[in-house]
């Protein structure tokens, strides 16, 4: 099922022509409207007529998150503020948040792609969508909201938090689709018992989960516990928020809406473009945005562009599930590890839950990683030997799969703090 078949299934050649045309216009707009980009282009000896299409993409400068911060709040806006109809901002845990502004057209384009995403993930106008992403400065809530309204589905704008109420509404309102972070989905699942709700009391069919990296094993866990299909949605506030990409029913990679976003994979160190099917950093150029268009934005997300036609019929290429942002990468004795990789191993052992936390410390010149994870509630433990056996098995698996030695701490069920939004998996005590 497609929301917008002519666009979603546009022949590649036509799609690339459209991208080329939009890129040329974008560069023109940025050159004239955003001093930051004019300077950057001039530094490279470029003016708009040098950029004739996609073939000139790698002549263009990159944009980094720090550029948004340095130009706080409106420095990168390409439209006067009276044309901006909405502002969102990142949480900005350190210093100033990153601010994004949307024109009326931006909001329309955003809800268009969010509607495509919802439909790709099995929602229709008949669906009851419970939107448990936070509403507010965070793009999650309002992004999904716009898409669901465009789709014509019924939306429950419950926002994040208040688990008991979430479950009550889910049951009483016959929710068919839930949207939230994957870690919160799991928390909802484990809270069912607490509030005396059975899976059979629910009409839930699918969940659309994003805003934090999660593993394939985590998907299996959520699907098993909630009896749903769990779809991964991609977005980041600098680009627009949720809806940049989505998994279709194939559940193998996320389609990126290439009529609106130009994607590349680069080597994060040399900044050179990498071929298809090669892991690197995802870089996005916004082709249609008016409020704050970005050239070659370095997302920090590690993935690859998949070189394959999707059986679903969409021509927009897919990226592989994200292992995590470069910021989340831990280096333990020279081995790069993402929290999602550890998550995957933990769940696959069958002894522990997906509620875990990673603590990185520096001892001397080495990074030491402690994995703290809650035991499954139905683990049969009668002796310290039982615990040792579980510990040994998990440690061996982590070492076998990831090649790293960690300290493991097993926790009682329910002791790690549950997050209503993005789960904090990594606690970095390295003070670098």
């Amino acid at each position, binding site marked *: 099922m497609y929301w917008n078949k002519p666009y979603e299934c546009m022949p590649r050649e036509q799609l690339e022509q459209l991208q080329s045309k939009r890129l040329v216009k974008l560069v023109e707009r940025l050159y004239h409207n955003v001093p930051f980009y004019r300077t950057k282009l001039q530094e490279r000896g470029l003016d708009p007529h040098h950029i004739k299409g996609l073939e000139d993409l790698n002549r263009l400068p990159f944009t980094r998150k720090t550029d948004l911060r340095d130009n706080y709040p409106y420095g990168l806006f390409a439209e006067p503020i009276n044309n901006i109809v909405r502002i969102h901002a990142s949480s900005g845990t350190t210093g100033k948040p990153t601010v994004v502004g949307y024109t009326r057209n931006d909001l329309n384009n955003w809800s268009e792609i969010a509607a495509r995403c919802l439909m790709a993930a099995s929602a229709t106008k008949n669906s009851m969508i419970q939107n448990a992403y936070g509403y507010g400065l965070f793009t999650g809530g309002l992004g999904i909201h716009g898409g669901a309204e465009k789709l014509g589905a019924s939306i429950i704008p419950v926002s994040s938090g208040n688990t008991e109420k979430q479950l009550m509404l889910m049951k009483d309102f016959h929710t068919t689709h839930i949207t939230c972070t994957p870690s919160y989905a799991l928390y909802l699942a484990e809270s069912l018992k*607490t509030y005396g709700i059975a899976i059979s009391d629910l009409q839930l069919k699918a969940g659309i989960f994003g805003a934090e990296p999660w593993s394939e094993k985590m998907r299996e866990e959520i699907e098993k516990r909630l009896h749903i299909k769990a779809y991964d949605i991609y977005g980041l506030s600098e680009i627009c928020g949720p809806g940049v990409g989505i998994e279709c029913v194939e559940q193998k990679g996320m389609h990126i809406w290439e009529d609106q976003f130009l994607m590349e994979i680069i080597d994060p160190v040399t900044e050179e473009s990498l071929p298809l099917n090669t892991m690197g950093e995802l870089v996005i150029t916004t082709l249609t945005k008016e409020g704050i268009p970005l050239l070659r934005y370095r997302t920090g997300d590690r993935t690859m562009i998949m070189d394959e036609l999707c059986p679903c019929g969409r021509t927009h290429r897919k990226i592989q599930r994200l292992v995590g942002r470069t910021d989340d990468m831990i280096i333990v004795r020279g081995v790069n590890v993402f929290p999602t990789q550890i998550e995957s191993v933990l769940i696959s052992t069958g002894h522990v839950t997906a509620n875990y936390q990673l603590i990185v410390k520096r001892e001397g010149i080495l990074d030491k990683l402690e994995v703290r994870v809650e035991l499954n*509630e139905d*683990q049969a*433990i009668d*002796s310290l030997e039982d*615990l040792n056996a579980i510990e040994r098995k998990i440690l061996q698996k982590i070492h076998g799969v990831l090649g790293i030695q960690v300290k493991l701490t097993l926790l*009682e069920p329910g002791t790690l703090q549950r997050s209503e939004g993005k789960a904090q998996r990594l606690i970095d005590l390295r003070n670098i």
Partner: protein
Amino acid sequence: MIEQLSIFMQNKEGHLSKVLRILSEDDINIQSLTISETGEYGIMRLIVSETEKAMTALKSNRVLCNITPVFAVSIPNRPGAMLQFVDLLSSKDLSIEYAYSYPSTNDAISVIVFKIDRKKWTNVEEILQNFENASLLDQESLLKL
């Protein structure tokens, strides 16, 4: 066969009292208690007045607990009686995984709770049937002691 509760805890302040509070609020009496621990973890083994009720209360508070089947045996309260009992089990190739004593108000007997390999349960009953200095107790008689 006796139903013993085995409870996993982190060896941290407040974790023991959490479990005890849950039991106390449900009016469950603890008949015997042992704890084995490392620096990080503790395993508490309890025999309580109402096992099922205790399990339900603990589970609904997300305490990691299980019912472990163990044996309780009453032996004479005199020097050498425990040795004799253990020797008997050893001679039949039964080894004890763990054991602890259970309080009794009767001075003439000692009560020992012990766990052995699940595969050898049936042997225990057979062996002790013909042994005059030890008798197996069931849950009901244990709680009445």
